[in-house]
């Protein structure tokens, strides 16, 4: 089904447990490079948990266990001795609620590069500008880069968080319901941005809105009770779902 595109992330028989509760069951999935893959499903289906297994953010929760493999560019990110910090440099993440740091707009974007050892002011300036431009925020904030990031609007904050993620130069972007806290206009802007970003990034987006999945994504995976029921090109999932449960969900018969 996906033979024509290069695979960026390959998930093989992935299982995930919170204590005794199995949140993900036997996930097999291939995420194509430089495309947008949407993860949909009713709340509690495991789509956000799955997203967080891709950059090992779930490591931060006590009493969790992972079985299976996640290969990024062919390398298993769960292999022993892997440096999680290095891994996360490669993979940007945008959270459900905009979470700017209580710093200036400039310092938010420069935070990652600075932490990774870039000290040269000119280089930092350039990165901040390029990242903000790439996140379609530059024109709105270029005159007030030293203002607190807490004082801009929610939609701007979310684009700032995207810029912050881009600034460390990842090749994958994970987005966890990035527009659920935003109004429709801000949502439209972010969706526009996401579509532009796929030229350079492999994007995986969790969304609770099927319309959003249909609007922005190239591929869609449908999650239910911790399992992938169906995945494939978005068009096919929405127009000719193979599984009855997918059809039920898409036509709004449950969840």
């Amino acid at each position, binding site marked *: 089904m996906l033979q024509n595109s290069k695979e960026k992330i390959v998930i093989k028989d992935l299982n995930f447990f919170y204590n005794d509760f199995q949140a993900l069951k036997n996930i097999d999935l291939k995420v194509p490079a430089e495309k947008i893959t949407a993860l949909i499903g009713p709340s509690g289906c495991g789509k956000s948990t799955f997203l967080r297994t891709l*950059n090992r*953010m779930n490591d*931060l929760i*006590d*009493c969790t266990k992972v079985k299976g493999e996640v290969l990024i560019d062919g390398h298993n990110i769960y292999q022993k001795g892997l440096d999680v*910090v*290095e*891994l*996360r*440099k*490669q*993979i*940007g*993440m945008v*959270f459900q*609620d905009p*979470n*700017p*740091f*209580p710093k200036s707009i400039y310092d938010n974007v420069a*935070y*990652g590069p600075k*932490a*990774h050892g870039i000290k040269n002011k000119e280089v930092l300036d350039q990165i901040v500008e390029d990242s903000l431009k790439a996140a379609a925020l530059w024109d709105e904030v270029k005159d007030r880069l030293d203002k607190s990031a*807490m004082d801009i609007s929610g939609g701007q904050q979310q684009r700032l*968080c995207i810029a*912050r*993620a881009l600034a*460390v130069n990842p090749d994958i972007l994970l987005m966890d319901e990035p527009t659920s806290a935003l109004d429709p206009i801000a949502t439209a802007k972010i969706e526009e941005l996401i579509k532009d970003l796929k030229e350079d990034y492999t994007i995986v987006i969790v969304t609770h809105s099927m319309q959003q999945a249909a609007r922005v994504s190239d591929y869609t995976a449908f999650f239910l009770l911790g399992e992938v029921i169906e995945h494939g090109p978005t068009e096919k999932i929405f127009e000719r779902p193979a599984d009855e449960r997918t059809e039920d969900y898409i036509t709004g018969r449950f969840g």
Partner: protein
Amino acid sequence: MTDNLKQKLGFGILRLSTWLILFILFIILYDIISKGIGVISWEFLTTAPRSGMTEGGIWPAVIGTVLVTMITALFAVPIGVFAAIYLNEYASQGKLTRTIRMAIRNLAGVPSIVYGLFGLALFVKNLGLGTSVLSAGLTLGLLTLPVTITASEEALKSVPNSYRHGSLALGVSKWHTIRHNVLPNAIPGILTGAILGLSRAAGETAPILFTGAAFFLPRIPDSLGSQFMALPYHLYILSTQHHSIGVVRPIAYGTAFVLIVLVLILNLVAIFIRYRFRKNLSK
């Protein structure tokens, strides 16, 4: 009696109890301030006691208290913050963490005189530090530790997790995240707790009785190894151990006044920082 009347009466009793406590506080402050303020003069604050402590001032006691409180701060604040960083940022739930927390809660309940015994046995006797500013400061430091740990942990807890996750997701290391994105936001809370803990240490008497406080020493300590006078101990001496208690009563009131003012100022600073901090957080 109708239900309404009962409620009026009941709430009245609750209000009265609260007022009683305010009244007690008022009496305490009023008595010390009204009888102490007349004694205060530049000379009282800046000269040493004279003529068997019946004349002169309290300068060595002021300096002694400040010095010993500084030692306490240097010891208790860093360790308190470090321990809190472990508990809030690194510790996973388990037996060890539970034991550490239980130990901290129990340390908070150990009587101050027992800290005095411990300080005497450990610092003065076994480690050979003698009765000194250092021994007393370290003893008070141990006593303050539960306060600084608990306050620092509260402060760290109040920093939203999204700051941590946002930073970690950028591939920033854990320590860098804590150092640059968590600690700066916890500093006001840590400061508030530290100041409150230190104000309590500054007013303590029992832990310094045998670890370094001197009955009468009309000069400021010349090193961390020497004994010192301290405001609370001086007040104790003047009010119970002096041969002419009646004569030195005004000096005792003056000492109590200075001690109370010192503690109140520290508390007000702490309350002010916390108030500013809350306002900033809610923004």
